[in-house]
């Protein structure tokens, strides 16, 4: 197990270098120049342009810039935003808890509903329940997130007035950020009603962000279950008179879960992509919106630093997923 862990960790190094090259070159491949964009219609003189180029180090060969960047990275320096002039890592760390909180809630919701619904649909294959679930999942999967989010806001916040429109907590509450997770911070603050306000702000964005993963997980669970339910050992379990709940819950589901766990792991990437739109609609101060803004402004430092940090997170999640396989299925114990 430890050997497996070490070998997987060692594999992270070349992957990380690969990602750093992609992140570094990707944003520079886009046409456009952060200095010209900063100047806008106002423009600037040629000398001034050269001055800024050299101040930002853009006048050196790309290879030199890359190795300098890599050296800085090794010392934990992710660079400074060209636009806000603040350190990239500092910005990331301030914003990331918001994204993490939202993503965790969304994935929990997606799993909590997606897995049982998928199992039910598989067990009742062909029934109206199955068809409703799969139909809804298809709609959920194909839903344009932006439109879906606005629709929910107009219905639940506008017409019914049940949930707040956007943000993480009512503006009436003000307390210092301790963990960066609003649910925890609001409890720590001891202010009456703060936690409830934080929860109510989470409801709609969680639903919106969970929609696609939920649909994918439900469909995946259903098809994995169908496959397993046809296996000999399930028939044997039934034949020996085990209660149906035990057959499905223990014998079938546990085996069906392996592809489902892979899917859940893959949804982390989907969540981070979905967070970009969800955060924009709900004014959620996370890294999704931060990255998009930076691409538009060609803020090289933020885009490459942000990509690296996000890629790092996805790599770690994948590692955890690999380790989880062993827990679920002893045959793949490492």
């Amino acid at each position, binding site marked *: 197990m430890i050997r497996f862990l070490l070998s997987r960790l060692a594999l992270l190094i070349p992957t990380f270098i690969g990602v750093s090259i992609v992140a570094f070159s990707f944003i520079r491949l*886009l*046409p*456009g*120049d*952060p200095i*010209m*964009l*900063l*100047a*806008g*219609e*106002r*423009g*600037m*003189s040629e000398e*001034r342009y050269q001055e*800024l180029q050299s*101040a*930002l180090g853009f006048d050196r060969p790309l290879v030199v810039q890359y190795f300098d960047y890599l050296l800085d990275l090794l010392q934990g320096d992710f660079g*400074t935003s*060209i*636009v*806000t*002039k*603040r350190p990239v890592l500092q*910005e990331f760390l*301030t*914003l990331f808890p*918001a994204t993490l909180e939202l993503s965790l809630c969304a994935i929990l919701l997606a799993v909590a509903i997606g897995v049982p619904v998928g199992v039910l649909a598989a067990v009742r294959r062909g029934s109206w329940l199955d068809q409703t679930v799969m139909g809804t999942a298809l709609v959920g999967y194909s839903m344009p997130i932006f439109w879906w989010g*606005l629709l929910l*806001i*107009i219905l639940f*916040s*506008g*017409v*019914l*007035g049940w949930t*707040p*429109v*956007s*943000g*993480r907590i*009512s*503006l*009436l509450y*003000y307390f210092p*950020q301790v963990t960066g997770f609003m649910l925890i911070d609001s409890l720590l603050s001891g202010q009456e009603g703060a936690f409830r306000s934080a929860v109510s702000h989470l409801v709609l964005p969680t639903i919106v962000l969970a929609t696609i993963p939920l649909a994918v997980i439900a469909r995946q669970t259903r098809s994995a279950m169908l496959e397993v339910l046809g296996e000999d050992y399930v028939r044997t379990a039934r034949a020996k008179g085990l209660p149906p709940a035990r057959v499905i819950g223990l014998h079938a589901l546990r085996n069906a879960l392996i592809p489902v766990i892979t899917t859940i792991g893959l949804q982390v990437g989907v969540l981070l992509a979905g967070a970009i739109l969800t955060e*924009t*609609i*709900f*004014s959620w*101060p*996370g890294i999704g*919106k*931060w990255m998009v803004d930076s691409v538009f402004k*060609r803020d090289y430092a933020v885009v490459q630093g942000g990509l690296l940090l996000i890629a790092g997170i996805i790599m770690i999640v994948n590692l955890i997923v690999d380790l989880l396989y062993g827990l679920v299925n002893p045959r793949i114990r490492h």
Partner: protein
Amino acid sequence: MKAKVLFAAALLGATMLSGAASAKTLVYCSEGSPEGFDPALYTAGTTFDASSKAVYNRLVQFEPGTTNVVPGLAESWEVSEDGLEITFRLREGVKFHSTDFFTPSRDFNADDVLFSFQRQLDEAHPYHAYVEGASWEYFNAMSMPDLVESIEKVDDMTVKFVLTRPEAPFIANLAMDFASILSKEYADQLAEGGRMSDLNQRPVGTGPFQFVAYQPDAVIRYRAHPDYWNGKQPIDDLVFAITTDASVRQQKLLAGECHIMPYPNPADIASLKANDQLTVMEQEGLNVGYLAYNTQQEPFDRAEVRKALNMAINKQAILDAVFQGAGQIAKNPIPPTMWSYNEEIEDDPYDPEAARKMLEEAGVTDLSMKVWAMPVQRPYNPNARRMAELIQEDFSKVGVNVEIVSYEWGEYLERSKAVDRDGAVLLGWTGDNGDPDNFLAVLLGCDAVGGANRAQWCNEEFDALVQKAKTLSSQEERAELYRQAQVVFKREAPWATIAHSIVYMPMRKEVTGYKMDPLGGHAFEGVDLAE
């Protein structure tokens, strides 16, 4: 349905806002995050709203709701005969903010003024490069390094600016956001503590509101400055709730989660106006959207050809389709709210028949040209692609074949500057300091050919008028010259002037005393909430 919406909104509004009854809190749903809080480092209006407008003052200021320059931290000023020396007498007893992180030991004085400008001017100043990539963009864009010979402290309450040449718009420049006055005492304290970058993250100024806290991309909190020299504000707290999507901002306003919002969707303005809980203020933006011909290229080097093409453009159709009514037709290169705007000028009529004839008489047949469409939305042109398509259609009616081209925004700005550029360019401008020079000289002067002068147009008569106006200090005399310059512009038609946008500001009925800023900023000095 509508009653239900209103009821729900009222209910929610009541619960949201009544909690703050003990302290009067004004919530502004702002459109984006500030880049930082040192206005001189940046050029974005969103940043200025959060920094210079709320926290700082300048030596001179724009009178709220106008572009008139009035005393700010300077009580008065004198310009020497030759126009080269401007002496400011500073206001006594002005207090900086006392906050959790800084307690001032003295009032505002000349040292603060020197600090605020020297850090931008002097490359050896310890604060010149206090954040990585500090470039003092606006200070440079307004040519301040060339213009300012020196800044001298005459005594504690008197400061003298020495210029390299007489320049009338200079005073208006000092009312711009980059000229905000910071506390030297605070800066020194930060430098000693090795926390210089805090100057850009935890601002201390003399302005109407003092900074409390900023949660990136979420909320900025301010409190009214209790010792503000211009009187304490009627509201106690000011909150910016950062909400980037216009539809969401609107929902928040309707739900009472904020009191006032900028930049509504043009398509929603009618319904906002119809809502009896809201007031929708409107004002012409200080901007102009135009199509600039390349006047150095055949056949656009001839005024009659340009004039004919201008007559072929159906501006009303553009206004309806592109601005959805949130604009007005432009006849002059400066907006109507600006002093010296020449009312008497008549716009070229929309007359495709006459235009076709004029082109024939000029010997122009089978003309093919390019029209450049910007890839981005700007206040002066919400949809350049659509505008280009409409112009394409209009020109085809007079026998001119148009190809629409576009580039990435940075490229677009760069390539459109070239003197040998092929085609007419859609672009525009938003005023910086309310001075006509900021449009006429910057965009149409001979010096700007190959730069901001996208028409590559150098007309001696026009340039002489504009250059002369720059050296005079009487606004009346200057206005007369600018009015004449607009006549020359109309006769020569280097641009097709298309539109000025109209800016809307929806707010809840209880908001009183808000004044729209023609320069496009959002300031809350003097704003109150009715009970």
